[in-house]
Structures are given as C-alpha cells and as structure tokens.
C-alpha cells in the first residue's frame, strides 16, 4: 500500500503529461477536408491560382444504401495568391474543414505555369510535410483546374483516374520524389507526363470524362519547352527503360502487320569518349510474344522467325533513333540524362565540359544496337483464319 502511495505522484505526473499537453495534433476525420488532387495554374497577373478537389464524404456511399439521388462526389474550390502557400491559405478560408494533403496523390500543373518555370514553385511541394513524395505530378494542357471538375464514369474521382493511368506504365508516370531528383541532376532537362481531357462520346455529358496522359511535356532549365506526341513518348520511354507492358506493331516485308505483346526491354547506355569525340551506344535487349499476326508468314518456321525478328529489330531501332535524334537536334533537351551517364563514367572530362553540355549534347554520336527475340508464337502457330496453302513457309 505504501508503495502505491509512493507511486502516486509519478502516476500524476505521467497522467498530466499525457492529458495536459496543449499542442494536441489530434484532428478528427470529420474535421478534415480530404484533398485528392491539387491543380496549380498561373493567373493572368502572374500570380498563382490553386484549385483543390475535395471529397464530399456524405456522397461517398454506394447507390444501394444512399438513396436520395446522386450527389457530386467531389467539389472544387480555388483561390489565387502570390505563391502556392499564399493561395492555399486563402483557399482555407473558403473550406470549413482543415485542408488535408496526406491523401493528395495527384498534382496537376497548368501549361502556362510550366512554361514560365516550375522550379521556384516546386519548393512548397517538397518542403511542406503533408504532400506525399509518391504523389504523381502531371502537366496539363490548358488550365489545370478544368480536370478537377470532371466526373469520371468509372473511377471515384478524376484524381483516381489519373493515378491509375500513371500506374499502368503504358505512359509515363513521374512522382514528386522523382521530379525533385530530376530537377537536380546533371542534364538540365526532364520529361513529365502531359495530360489532356478526353473528349467524351457524343451521348455523354461533357463533364463525364477523364483526364488522360496524352504525351510528354519536356522541360529545360525548369521551364516547359514543348510537348511530345503519344508516339514520340513511347520512344522516350524505350530509352528511359520504362517499357513494361507494351505492344509493338511492325510490318515485316511490307505484307501486313504483326503485333507483339507484352514486349519487355532492357536498355543500357554505354558512353565513350575518344579524344574529342563523345559517343554513346544504346544497347537494347527486347523480347516479346506474338499477339496478332495479319501476314501470311508462319512464325513457327525458324527461317521466317529470323525475318520477323529482323523486322522487330528494325522497328525498335527506328523508333529510338528518331526519338533521340529529335531530342538532340530539334529540342536540344537531354531528357534521357545522358549527361549523368557521362558524368558517372568520365568524371574528370565531365568536370571540364559540364559548362557547355548544351552545345555538346547535339554532337554526341549515338548508335543503337538492338537484340530482339520473339519468344512465343501464341496459341496458334499458322496465321489464324487463313487456309494452310496460303501460308508462306
């Protein structure tokens, strides 16, 4: 008993340290405004306009239980300010609940803002503790806030739709963390996915659609310099070694198309400096399974297989050469970070030349070596739906 009495002051101290602390971080879920997507645009006056897509919890229940008609699942609120945090603090005045960034997995940046410069605004996203490092970042064609008001027919909200698309790895998906790394690397250029709003089918409500990843936005010195088309993006993804579940279609001997899926590729960049001459070998090991064969060729035949593989190889090489060529000569933007590759292999030469990388990059001699294999012909060997006699052996 006396021991307990002795312990009482200690217990009292413990209890008060737990119960009297004034700075409780406790926030009830009911007091949070869950932001799913944040759009950042540039206003005409040069300020920042932030728009947040906020979940409406009352309208989240599935149809069977809810009743009482279909409410919107998200709401968009926007506000302007001198910079992002200023705009957000003003935005908070318009939202009765505390803005919560922890679940914001998509940041959408307007093209206008991207063209004037992304670097200075990026500070907020990495400095503030709440935004997730693994949130995806996209550049939007036109005002970014437009995408926030869409009502996606399949996903819960447009943020979810964008995030799922980025995760499919068919198009580029870049997270906040990767962006912050890219902003600091040797080459001053990088690529971010470029989003536009899908045109809804004729019978649909114009808002019932999703934003989708159309191409790639190229950045140099932290400013957007242009956008690549869907096809060009695929070339970029080959070089960036991000090709995952991907279809390649080519014309062997000009006699109809053959499609391979899934194509897997392993890309290696081998830099070489000989005297003054800087060169780079892109060696690619690609393999894939036949998914569709519209030609009369029998892919099981070893001879034909060589022909097919050669066509596959040429197709891949052409894509990559075109893509790199374009970056070197049209945009002069090293979005593949060749600079880093040279830096790692030749640190001393790099130190000497890093100032004039801009003039050096277009002059690099790039050779593409492709090793391509077709692994599986699929469930049928001869071309399906074609009489045996017509098949070329």
């Amino acid at each position: 008993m006396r021991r307990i009495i002795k312990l009482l002051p200690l217990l009292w101290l413990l209890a008060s340290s737990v119960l009297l602390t004034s700075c409780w971080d406790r926030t009830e879920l009911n007091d949070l405004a869950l932001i799913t997507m944040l759009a950042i645009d540039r206003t005409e006056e040069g300020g920042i306009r932030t728009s947040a897509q906020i979940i409406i919890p009352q309208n989240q229940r599935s149809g069977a239980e809810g009743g009482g008609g279909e409410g919107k699942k998200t709401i968009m609120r926007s506000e302007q300010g001198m910079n992002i945090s200023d705009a957000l603090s003003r935005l908070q005045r318009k939202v009765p609940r505390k803005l919560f960034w922890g679940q914001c997995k998509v940041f959408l940046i307007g093209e206008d803002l991207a063209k004037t410069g992304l670097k200075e605004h990026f500070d907020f996203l990495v400095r503030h503790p709440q935004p997730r490092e693994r949130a995806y970042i996209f550049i939007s064609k036109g005002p970014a806030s437009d995408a926030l008001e869409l009502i996606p027919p399949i996903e819960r909200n447009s943020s979810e739709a964008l995030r799922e698309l980025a995760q499919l790895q068919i198009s580029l998906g870049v997270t906040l963390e990767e962006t912050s790394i890219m902003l600091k690397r040797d080459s001053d250029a990088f690529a971010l996915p470029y989003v536009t709003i899908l045109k809804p089918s004729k019978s649909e409500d114009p808002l019932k659609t999703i934003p989708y990843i159309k191409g790639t936005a190229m950045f140099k010195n932290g400013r957007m310099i242009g956008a690549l088309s869907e096809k060009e993006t695929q070339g970029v993804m080959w070089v960036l070694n991000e090709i995952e579940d991907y279809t390649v279609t080519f014309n062997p001997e000009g006699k109809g198309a053959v499609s391979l899926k899934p194509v897997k590729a392993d890309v290696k960049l081998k830099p070489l400096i000989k005297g003054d001459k800087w060169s780079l070998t892109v060696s690619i090991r690609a393999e894939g399974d036949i998914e569709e064969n519209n030609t009369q060729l029998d892919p099981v035949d070893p001879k034909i297989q060589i022909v097919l593989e050669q066509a596959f190889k040429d197709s891949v090489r052409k894509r990559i050469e075109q893509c790199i060529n374009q970056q070197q000569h049209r945009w002069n933007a090293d979005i593949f970070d060749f600079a880093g590759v040279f830096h790692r292999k030749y640190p001393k030469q790099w130190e000497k030349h890093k100032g004039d990388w801009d003039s050096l990059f277009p002059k690099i001699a790039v050779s593409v070596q492709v090793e391509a294999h077709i692994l599986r012909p699929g469930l049928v060997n001869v071309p399906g739906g074609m009489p045996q006699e017509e098949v070329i052996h």
Partner: protein
Amino acid sequence: MTIRRTSRYFDRHVKQQRPSHHKQDEQSRAEIPHDTELTDRLDENVGTIGNIYSSCSDVIYRHFVIAGSIRAVMIYIEGITDTNGIEQFVIAPLLKAEQSEDFRPDQLLQQTLSVAEGKAVSRFSQCIDYLSRGYAILLLEHEASGLALGMAKWEKRALEEPAAEVGIRGPREGFTETLRVNTSMLRRIIKSPRLKLETLQLGEYTQTSIVLAYIEGIAEASLVEEVRSRLCRIEIDGILESGYIEELIEDSPYSPFPQLLNTERPDVTSACLLEGRVAILVEGTPFVLVAPVTMFTMLQAAEDYYQRFWISTITRWLRYFFSIASLTLPAVYVAVLTFHQEMIPGSLLISMAASREAVPFPAFIEALMMEVSFEALREAGVRLPKQVGAAISIVGALVIGQAAVQAGLVSAPMVIVVAITGISSFMIPRYFAGTALRMLRFPLIILASTLGLLGLILGIIAIVVHMCTLRSFGVPYLSSSSTPIWSEFKDTIFRAPWWMMDTRPSLTGTTNYTRQSPNQRPEQDRGEQ
C-alpha cells in the same frame, strides 16, 4: 497490508506460529480451547464434544449398548458421513456382537467392524479434525481412546467437460470440486509412484485441504521447496478457491498478468507436471494452479498437442497475432484515425470518412464507448442466468451492432474493430490471460488518443518492460523470447512433432532434461533394420 493484518489477527488468537504444515494436530488444537486427552468416562467425553459442537444441529450422537453391557456413542456429522454405512457396517455388527468378544478399540477394528479405514483417536482435537472431514467417531465406555471410522461420503458433482477450456480433440473430463477425485484423476494419468501428492491444510476456519503435486526427479527440488514454503506462509481465515492462493503466493502481486496457470483439465495439469512444473490442487474448486509458467504457456492450448503439428503451429501463429491484436487494435485504429490519416489507403479513408460523417463523437470517445459496452455485455453474459442469456445477447448484438450504427452513434468500422478485438481476446486459451490483455487495452487507447502512434508505442514499451521484469517462481515470464533459447522454440513459436520434442523445457525440466529417446521419427524401413 492485508497479509500483515491477518498475521496480527493470528497472533492474538493463536499465540504461537505453526512451525510446519505437517503437524496438523497442532493446527487443530488452535480451534479447541482445552485440547485434552479423552478420559475413560464416556459421558464426560461426549459432554466435551457436545460443548465444542454446541448449537451444531448437524452433529448426530447415536447412543447404543454393545452386547447388553457396554455403552457406546457414535458421533458423526450428517450429510458428509455415510449413514447407511454406519448402520450396516458399524452399528449392526456391534449390536449383534457376543459378550465374549474383545471390545477394546483396536480389537474392534480388527475383528468386528468391516470398515476400510479406521484410526484410533485419543485427543479431542483429533476427534474434531476427523469429524469435520466426515469420519464417524466411536466412543466406548471405560475407554480413553476412540475410533475414527472413514465413512466420509457427500454429494459430489459428476465429472463434466471443463466449461472454461473446451476442445474438440482430447479428454473431455475436467476436475471437480472434490479434491480426492481430482488427485485420483492425476494418479490415473501418471501411474508412477514418483508422482507425489503432499497434503496440507490451510485456512483457520475452512481447514481447506491443499495438495501439492509434482513428479519427483523431474520437478526441481528447489522449486518444490519454494512452492511449499510459500504455501506454508499463508495464514488466512478461509480458502474458498485457488484464486486466494494464487494471489498469496505469486511473485508480482500488482501485475495484471497471471503468474500461475489455472486449469480445469487433468491432461493439461499432467502435461505440466511432466514438464517439471508443480501443481496446486485445492479442495472445493476445479481450478488447479500450475507454476512456474511463461507467457507462452498461457498461449498454448491442450489441443495443440493432440492434433497434427502443422495445424497446431499455424493455429499458434494465429493466436499470437490475435492476442497482439486484442491488445492494440482499437488503439491503433484510434491513433491512425485521429493522428495519421495519411497512413490509411486513400479509398479506405474515403469510405471511413463517409461512415464517420454522421458520428457526433471523437474517435476516442467512440472507441471507449464501444469497448466499455462490449466489456459490459461480456460480463453480463457470464453472470446471466442461462434462460435470459440468449435474449440479452440478441439485444446486445442488435443494439450495438446495428442500431447504434444506424442511429449514427458509432461508425461501422469501429464496430468491426471492436468485434475483432473482442473475438481475438477469446482466442487466448487461458481465459484469465486474455482478461489481462483486454484490461490493458484501455490505457493504450487513452495513450493513442493523446499522443498518437507515439503514445501507443510508449505504452507497448511499458508493457513489454513490465513483462520482462515479471517472474513466475523465478522463471522469467518472457523467457525463450526475450533471450532466444533455440531449443525452446519447438514448443513456443512452433509446435514440433512429438518425435522432435526430445527434451523438456529448459527452464523447468533441467533436472531430468531428456523427455524421450531421440530418433523416433517414423520411417518406412525402420522395421526391417
């Protein structure tokens, strides 16, 4: 403090301390003001006993005359003595006896009385002692000693399946309230004479018999001596259940964790004895205490050893997981929901937000409310008469599970969390170890609601530190996990097949470490070798 007061009480009443439990006579003497020898005057003897048992309507005095000349008195307590037996085997032969026979007590036992157990008594204290245990006392005229005849018989409960420890496979009989039935069950399982059953009486008024059971040569002698000495220290007015003893002999009396195992199953007790542990059986309760134990003992079910070892191992992991869940789940839920919303997957958080929208209380109040009402339901369910039990459980389930959610008082996820916690606490095979975890969950919820996951971790650290300091008769409570003992894992993390369990637990069975001969794994060609 309680102990101290009791001892003062004893000092006043008993003048001298009992030196050893073996001397039961001395203990009985304490009850009788004038412990004297029997005299050879029958009336005086009966009068003295009558004075001691004044106002005791259940004490029966049967006067009769043997062979027409010798007066005799049969004294017994009705209800705990076999009246039919007394009539048939004691009174009847005595009434029919010829005058020529020898009527000295020891001769009577040898020649006339067909009773299995009979002892000569010469002191009043002995008489009282035997009477209270159901013996019949036969006093004869002109004899300064009487006979205590073992005619004890009282109503016993039939052997039933243990209520608190049910299993699908394994013996179904459980201990009963009768001590001798319980020891007989142990003896039936362990037939070796090395199974020792030491008896002692505890309790000033109840004189409860307590049996200390151990296997000589397996249990460490020092352990047995320690248990014995702790038992002998007990001075209490009455022992009604083994819980009294448990609280009086455990190492850390303030700890919420039970440091002795209590079990209703003879098979569990025997298994523990074979592992070198000591069992304490108490008259009047089916719950037997086993010491020493570790935390893992609390999480082992009897059935683990009867079913296939794969299943037992997986069940154990399930049990470990859920016993941690029963301690922490509501606290984790509260912490994550009020401090770390970013840790919940997005779509799940949106669903939670939707279901919490109508709830007026903070998550902490909600959790506390639900946990308390669950505990209330559980407690009510235990106390309720069987006839109303079903009605209450339906009302409880409906009110808490459905109506509260529909009324918007609690959110559906909270109901799920509380339900999982409730179920998981009952997965612990030892009901009372589960109670400890269930109790500790409340401080954890408070910590989690004030300091978030940080507070929860602080609380868990405190609990683990406390468990590390716990000892059960010298054996560390977390032994074999706090400092890994690899050989112990065969029966803690896993349940190794029997042909691999060659040794006893290293903390209790070192005196006789080898349990069985090695290399007993069944193989096909073994027969041919």
